[in-house]
């Protein structure tokens, strides 16, 4: 699974959000995008997932131009969880997860035994088996997020893209989601690409980090190379002290104040 953005320009209407960006997603690793609100993280993720057609440049999936491949073909390689997904309140968790099988289904979406197996596996992996027959409208924000993750898992793709998968979740559930992604990466060799706002969680769970500011990549590499006081000033406009956390063996950022104008 190789995902590469080459000279990519992404735009809404006529405003370029990302211009001429180059980025390589390392296969079978966890990559996290960080950056302030509006810096283009979601936009870049959309471009990588074929949801936005670049104005210029190409996105390559396993060496093939993603916008020239069939939609179904891409959906069997790559799943994507949007930032604020919505679904009808009456939809049952199991029904939502079953939609994840769409790229494999034919006419009218009859489920095969393999589909059922994958749906059960996804429900179990995301820990929402017990909620399978509950309507989404009756779930807490965190439970709903896990149900959506289960849907992405049912898609059974080598790469999973997630836009802020931990929003709405309390600390324990945040860790639950991140540990789940870590496990999927470790045991099932999935490539994970996500957007996180919590820099410390990003540093703790990622192999590779990409810092974005105003649509350009300011730094990328191992967490300890990306998380520096300079970068925090440059990207987030804050003064921060960077320490090393022995327990997680990763950098720890303590924000001190906003940078003077």
């Amino acid at each position, binding site marked *: 699974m190789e995902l590469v953005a080459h000279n990519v320009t992404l735009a809404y209407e006529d405003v370029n959000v990302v211009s001429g960006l180059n980025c390589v997603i390392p296969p079978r690793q966890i990559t996290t995008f960080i950056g302030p609100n509006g810096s283009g993280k979601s936009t870049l993720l959309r471009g990588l997932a074929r949801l936005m057609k670049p104005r210029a440049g190409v996105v390559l999936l396993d060496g093939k131009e993603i916008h020239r491949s069939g*939609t179904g073909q891409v959906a*069997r390689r790559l799943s994507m969880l*949007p930032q604020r997904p919505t679904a009808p309140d009456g*939809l049952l968790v199991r029904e939502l997860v079953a939609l*994840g099988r*769409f790229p494999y289904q034919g006419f009218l979406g009859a489920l095969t035994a393999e589909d059922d197996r994958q749906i059960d596996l996804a429900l179990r992996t995301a820990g929402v088996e017990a909620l399978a027959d509950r309507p989404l409208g009756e779930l807490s924000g965190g439970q709903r997020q896990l149900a959506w993750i289960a849907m992405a898992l049912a898609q059974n793709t080598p790469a999973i893209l997630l836009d802020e998968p931990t929003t709405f979740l309390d600390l324990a559930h945040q860790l639950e989601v991140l540990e789940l992604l870590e496990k999927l990466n470790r045991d099932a060799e999935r490539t994970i690409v996500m957007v996180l706002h919590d820099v410390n969680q990003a540093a703790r769970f990622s192999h590779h980090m990409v810092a974005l500011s105003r649509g350009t990549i300011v730094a990328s590499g191992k967490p300890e190379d990306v998380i520096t006081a300079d970068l925090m000033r440059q990207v987030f406009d804050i003064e921060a002290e960077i320490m090393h956390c022995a327990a997680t063996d990763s950098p720890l950022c303590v924000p001190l104040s906003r940078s003077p104008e």
Partner: protein
Amino acid sequence: MRAAFTSHWRIFAALSGLLIVELLASLLLGNSAISLSHLPSLLAGGGEFDARLVLFQLRLPRAVVAMLVGSALAVAGTLLQGLSGNDLTSPATIGVEAGSGLGLMFLIVAMPLSAARHPLLAPLASILGALAIAAIVFSLAYRHGSILPARLLLVGIAVGYAVQAAMLLLSLRMNYVTYSYVLTWMSGSLSSADWTSAAMLAPALAIVGSMALSKTHVLNVMAIGDEAAAALGVAVHRQRLTMIGLAAVLTSLGAAVAGQIGFIGLVAPHLARRLAGDDYRVVLPLSAIAGAALLLLGDALGRQLVQDVEIPAGVFVGILGGCYFLYLLATTKN
């Protein structure tokens, strides 16, 4: 979802039963009533000549057309509500119905009424008008390679009003007889229904209807939002365009025969969703049955309720639908 049909069979059976009762009633009741015991022999080709004539040339074709038109509009409405994610969308809100009327008006202005009422010419003009207006609405709503549902509705409503204004202008030049024909069309009536219109509707509806049915699974996926659906491999914009096209064809077919009766396309899908939930694979066929039942009932009431005067079916469909929405308002909290 897998048990979709099996778990909803009761609802299907109940609605189909209602439809059959309505069908029987509309065949038997009328100015000259036919008794139920005579029906089998009449259907087999026996019985009195007069009764056979009433049954085969008047009531049966009319009932068949009512069911076909009702289900065509209901399916159109289901597609439109599904693709726009908006429960208040109907064939009337995308301007297509008005376009159908405009086509008919042009025909009437262009030639004498007797010629314009040709059983194939009128539907043809109406369909052409509908498709022309649909093309205008689509091109105005089309931006940056996609049609946004909200934009489609705004443009559809605006164009719909413009077309209504044009129709009013055209009608100013009409004499009383022509105008009352147009008025009947506008209020939605099945008085011109015959075997010719049934023969035109049935195959068209079979083809377009099964294409619509084949889109129901995609509609289910599109309910989780454009982005999530696209990530699952749905070509959202292309699908939406195809579905709007299907809905436009269905609407114009219905309007060509029965006039402005698109309200069915608002009520029937609503009712089906309320009875059966969100799975479009169930909702679409159920809505088709509900639409057929609703128009058949509206037409039967219009023919029977007031002696010697025929009230257009659209009037009763409007009243029935209005009552349904009032009931919804009264029973839902908030």
